[in-house]
């Protein structure tokens, strides 16, 4: 898994590529909580376009990020969900709880 951090208007984009699984979700969790809790970024955009796989530990990290951003009064915004990511969201019944957009443009506009 690789994470690239990019600046955007009003916040930060994290481009995630590869597998968010038991081996790599801790790294994503760390990057996410750093942005939300330490840097107190008002909008954190998570670009999931290049995510090949996500497991329940990846979903758990996203949930932790969501809770942290709620605590901070900031926003966590996901976009570019592939079929496999969508399926896992649906299996978790969490697709309604996250703020999800199709494309980067739509996410940045939101």
């Amino acid at each position, binding site marked *: 898994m690789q994470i690239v951090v990019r600046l955007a208007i009003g916040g930060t984009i994290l481009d995630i590529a590869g597998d968010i699984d038991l081996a790599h979700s801790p790294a994503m969790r760390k990057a996410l909580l750093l942005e939300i809790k330490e840097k107190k970024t008002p909008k954190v955009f998570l670009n999931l376009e290049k995510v090949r796989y996500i*497991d329940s*530990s990846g979903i758990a990290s996203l949930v*932790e990020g969501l809770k942290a951003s709620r605590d901070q009064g900031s926003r966590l915004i996901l976009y570019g969900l592939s*079929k496999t990511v969508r*399926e896992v969201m649906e*299996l*978790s019944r969490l697709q309604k*709880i996250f703020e999800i957009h199709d494309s980067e443009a739509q996410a940045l506009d939101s």
Partner: protein
Amino acid sequence: MGVPVRGVRVTKNRSKGRGKAQPKSEMLVKLELQSNPEALCLVRATIERAAEVLHFRDTEARAIVRSVDEALANVIRHAYGGRAGHPIEMSCRKLQPGPQNSAQDGIEILLKDSGVPVKPSTLKGRPLGEVRPGGLGLHFIRQSMDEVEFSRKKGKNLLRMVKYLSPTPLAAASEGE
């Protein structure tokens, strides 16, 4: 090799009238790995291709991959307490309808580990939809596979998972796809 699975039984209930008859089966691949999270991506790739070879549709193949991955993650985290370097065995068989039963073609995956015994009472996730990390893996597995059975044999934990191919129209309807 038959697959005598008894003991704790957490079979997902789908009444398809297959009864007790055992379908024929053929070994596809057996894999030995260690309780190392880095190894999971190898297993996912192997299982994805196994599902492809057995003509599962993409959605079903992904469901099978997900179940195996979550089950292995649980072995690493719970049975081996997160410690690397312990043995895990996965065997993957092709199920074929035998002459005496109405089972469809399918895939059977058997996981074996030498970790602490599974406590049946702990084998449950948390209510879905709750905004709380954890407790999702078993849900994923049970929602994806047709049969899920935990057992213990000769000092090892066994997990047997089965998914059938191209269900009959009736079964398909009850599956809600």
